[in-house]
Structure formats: C-alpha cells, structure tokens
C-alpha cells in the first residue's frame, strides 16, 4: 500500500505571535522563526507509519510512505525530518508560499496522485499558518474520492483496503467507513496512544505524540531520495483564486489587573465589569 502525505513547512507555530507584518501591509514575515513541519502534517506522517507497521516488529513497513511538500527549495529540510521519522521518500514541488492558495495546492496534489497512484492521501486538517482547513476536502473532490476529515482515530483492517475513521465533529464523534482510495485529514487526537489500530499490531498503546527521529533514522534519511519538480512540469494552472490584498494586526487584549483575593474578584466582576 502506498500512502502520500502532504507536508507544509510553517514558521514555528509556538511563536506565531512573533510573525511580523511588513510596513506596506503586503507581506507577513517570519524572519528569525524556525521552519517546522506543520504539526498536523507531522501527525499525519506518524499516522501513516502506525498504519503500515507490520506487527512483527521487523521495522519494515507494509508499504510505502511518500512525503510531498510544495514550497521553497529549502523546505527539503522539513521533508528530510519526515524521512528521518521513517517515511520512505520525498517530493518537493517548488513554489512560493505567497503565490499559493488551497485550490492550487489541491491541484498540484491531484497531479501527483495521478503520477504516484497512492491508495491513501493522509494529511493535516489545517496548516497552522494560513488556518484554511480546505485542502484535503478540495483534493478529495478533484480526485472524485471519498473524504474523512478531522480523524481522531483510524482503524484499518489487515487487508489495507478501507478504514473506519472516528471524526471529531461538533457535539461528539462521527464514525465513517471509507473505501480506499480516499483522502483522510487528521486532528490532534490521532497521535494519542490509541489513535491508530492497524489490526495486525492489535490495539497497541503508542507513545503520546509523533515519534522523534532516532539517530539511525536521521542517518538513513540522508540517503533517501527527494525528487524535485516544478508546477509547470506538472502542468498546473497557477492563477490564484484567493488573493490576500493586505495583512493587518488584530486588536490585542491588554493585561488587566491582578486581584488579591476571591472577594475582590467577585466585587470587580459585579461592580466594575458587571458580568455577575
């Protein structure tokens, strides 16, 4: 089985409050911030590896995990990080973040699916820089495939032909069964200890969170191939459908006052804020 995992490079999300807007309001700069794989995409890589584990502990996967990114050439670093986790190979589609929208990314991915013929595209539910939450759903439509978004848990039978996905939705959890080929987008809980049941391993209790690359993994990753390709070579129309015309700083909340007791707090809430 082949799983394609699209991974976006983002500016360190734990320091998203340090991104700056250029003087003319036309650009966002993340200078000084480290590039990281989008956390949800790292979770998708972890999920792919958990799905393909062989259950006999040989370390071999029951298939191939291909990581693809659309971004600047130096985003190969983040692809390499995913290869060090255990993915098999990478594809880098050269593109400028400012000249991309979800529709272009989905079209690029659709072209790659045509070439690579994966059984499953496993991706993050949202890129935490643009916060769009669109690409998986758009890709599924372009491919004519079913979609299971916001997966908090995935069970895959031993034949690797379908998945039962527990989706995190408003008011609870919705369970669906998708036949492969399909697109699945993952939510935070997928990397909980019981996020994946691949049948052949039994319901294993994994560590919490995505795995760290081992030293061996990092060494191996140096030899794994990353193919580079352009959007022109893929024949993708690069006209933006959604243009950001201006960036602005949202109103900031200011720190208020510290109160010294519950009594003072209640008095303030009643008399000053008038919320009690």
């Amino acid at each position, binding site marked *: 089985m082949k799983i394609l995992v699209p991974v976006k490079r983002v500016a360190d999300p734990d320091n998203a409050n340090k991104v700056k807007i250029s003087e003319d309001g036309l650009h966002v700069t993340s200078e000084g911030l480290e590039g990281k794989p989008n956390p949800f995409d790292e979770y998708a890589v972890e999920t792919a590896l958990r799905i393909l584990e062989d259950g006999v502990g040989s370390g071999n996967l029951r298939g191939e995990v291909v990581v693809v990114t659309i971004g600047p050439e130096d985003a190969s670093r983040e692809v390499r990080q995913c290869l060090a986790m255990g993915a098999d190979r990478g594809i880098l589609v050269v593109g400028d973040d400012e000249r991309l929208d979800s529709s272009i990314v989905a079209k690029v991915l659709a072209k790659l699916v045509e070439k690579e013929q994966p059984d499953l595209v496993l991706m993050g539910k949202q890129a935490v820089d643009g916060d769009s*939450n669109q690409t998986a759903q758009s890709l599924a439509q372009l491919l004519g495939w079913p979609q299971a978004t916001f997966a908090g848990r995935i069970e895959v039978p031993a034949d690797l032909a379908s998945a039962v996905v527990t989706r995190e939705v408003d008011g609870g959890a919705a369970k669906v069964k998708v036949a492969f080929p399909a697109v699945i987008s993952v939510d*935070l*809980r997928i990397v909980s200890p019981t996020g994946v049941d691949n049948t052949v391993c039994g319901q294993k209790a994994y560590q919490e969170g995505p795995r760290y690359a081992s030293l061996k993994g990092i060494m191996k990753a140096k030899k794994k191939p990353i193919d580079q390709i352009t959007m022109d070579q893929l024949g993708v129309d690069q006209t933006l459908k959604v*243009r950001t015309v201006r960036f*602005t*700083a949202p109103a900031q909340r200011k720190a208020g006052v510290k*109160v010294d007791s*519950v009594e003072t707090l209640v008095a303030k809430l009643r008399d000053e*804020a008038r919320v009690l």
Partner: protein
Amino acid sequence: MSNILIVIHVTDNEVKKSVFSAAAFAKQAAAFAGGSYSLLAIGSDLSGATAKLATAGAAKVYTAQAPDLGNALAERLAPIIEQVLLAGSFKMVVSPASSVAKDVMPRLAARIGAGMASEVVGLSFDAGRFTYLRPMYAGNVNGAVQIDTPIEVVTIRPTEFEALAPSGTSPVETVAVPAPEPVAAKIEYLGFEKAVSTRPDLAEAAIVVSGGRGMKAKENFVILEELADLLGAAVGASRAAVDSGFIHNDFQVGQTGKIVAPNLYIACGISGALQHVAGMKSSRVVVAINKDEEAPIFQIADYGLVADLFKAVPELTAAVRALKG
C-alpha cells in the same frame, strides 16, 4: 445584483443561533452589493425547523430533505448545494463555520471551481467587490482576502456577527434532492457518539468556565461544573486537559477547537498558550486563576488571581452563591 445563499445542515430540528449570525453577515453583504439572501437547509427531517428558519429574513428558504441527509456526508451534500446555487443567480455561498461546513464547503468550492475564504470575521465592499477579513497564524495576523471566481465560497465565525433578531416569514420551497453520486457509495456512515452535556452550548454560552492541565484529574472538573451550573455557564477546556483525558474533545477551546466569545471567560489552571488564546480572545471579560504569576494568560486577562485553583474555585463558587442569594 448579487444574491447570496446561506447553507446550513439541521439535525434534530435544532436551529442554532449561528444561522442568525450568518443571516446578519448575508444581510450586510446583500446591502453592500445590492441583492437579497436566501437560505438552504439540508437534513433528514426539517418539519420542526422550517418555521424558525423562515424568520431569518431570507428572500426564500429552500429545504432539501431525504432520509440519508441527516448524516451530513460531504459527498452527498456538495452536489445538492451546487444544484441550488446554479439554479439561482448566486454570487456568494456562506455557512457558519461548524464542523459540517468545514467539511463540506471546501469540497463544494473545488466542485464549482470557486475560491473560498474560511472563518471570516469581517466584511467590506469596495469598487464592486467583497473583501473578507480572516484570522491567520492562530489569530496573530488578519488577512484581507478577495476571491476571483464568479461564485465566492465563505464560512464565517458566528461569534463575530451579532445574530439578527428573528422576524417576518420567508416563503419556503422544497428542493428536489438529486440521487447520490457514485462516490457516495465509497463512504458509509456508521454512527454518532454524542458528547453529553446538559449545559449551554459552548460556542453560544454567555459565560464559559474552562479548565486546563492544572485541574490535575478528571474528577476535579466537578468543582468547575459546580461553578458553571451556578452561573448557567458552559464548561470548556484546553488541549492539555483534553489530551489528559479530563474531558471530551468537543469542549476544547482554541485555534483548532471551539471559538468562543462569551461575556465572561474564566480560565482555571490554563497557561495561556497562543493556540488556546486564539479561541477565546474575543471574550468580553477574561478572568484567569493560575498559581504561576508568570503564566502568559495573565497578559490577556482583565482580572488575574494568582492562587491555587483548588482553593480559589470553591471560594469563588461560594461567593457567587452568596451573591445570588
């Protein structure tokens, strides 16, 4: 003329307040561009919802009903929305950013070759076109975006648009529901596990009491629930509290959870990571109870109490009880 279509999925005949927030947004958009807005409701049974939906000021309410539409599968819903869109002269299709809308609208956008703006918080109109304001980078930057396709697809954050007061009665038209497309056979709906809460809807509550990792254990949420019930509040949580198994994920507030904007938000044992703040910073009044005086949550709280929550929360409950007599 630019007509606008609001799309909502209805379960259990429940009409959420967010429909009226979407109506407020659509009314503004229609006023800018000259035109009207209509509403498309999809579900398995709309009999108890239609009368209320007809008070949202829509030029027309379209209803699409079929037994299998209760499950809100995107493969099934997108073609129905497309059919209604193309039959009318719609320039924009909008939905409150519920999990159903987040799932369906991007699929619809790709289907009709349209551009989409997610989780819009503001709207302006200049030189004949809409500009949508939307938060990015966990709410640390706002992007003003324009869409260059004949139909524009939008989801909005209901918390940012004050709900329209119900009035009038719109005419209702039943839509002929198309048969499922082949792709719908590739996905099977197996069921729904409801996160039970007897409290007000987190996204719409006037007061929210939230707990984080500092709550230490699931059992301890009882002290928050007591306070919440006294205040008529909803209970929320940080990701760490959810990941630790203290509370169901449906109650997570933040960049990737629920967006809330209550009158009063009380954060207990929550450090104030930017991903959490992204989901509650539009609250009117924020109270933080945390034993670490350096916790970032104090930088955005109107009232900060440096204290052990296991002492402060029960005290607060007692004080509120005394106040309410």
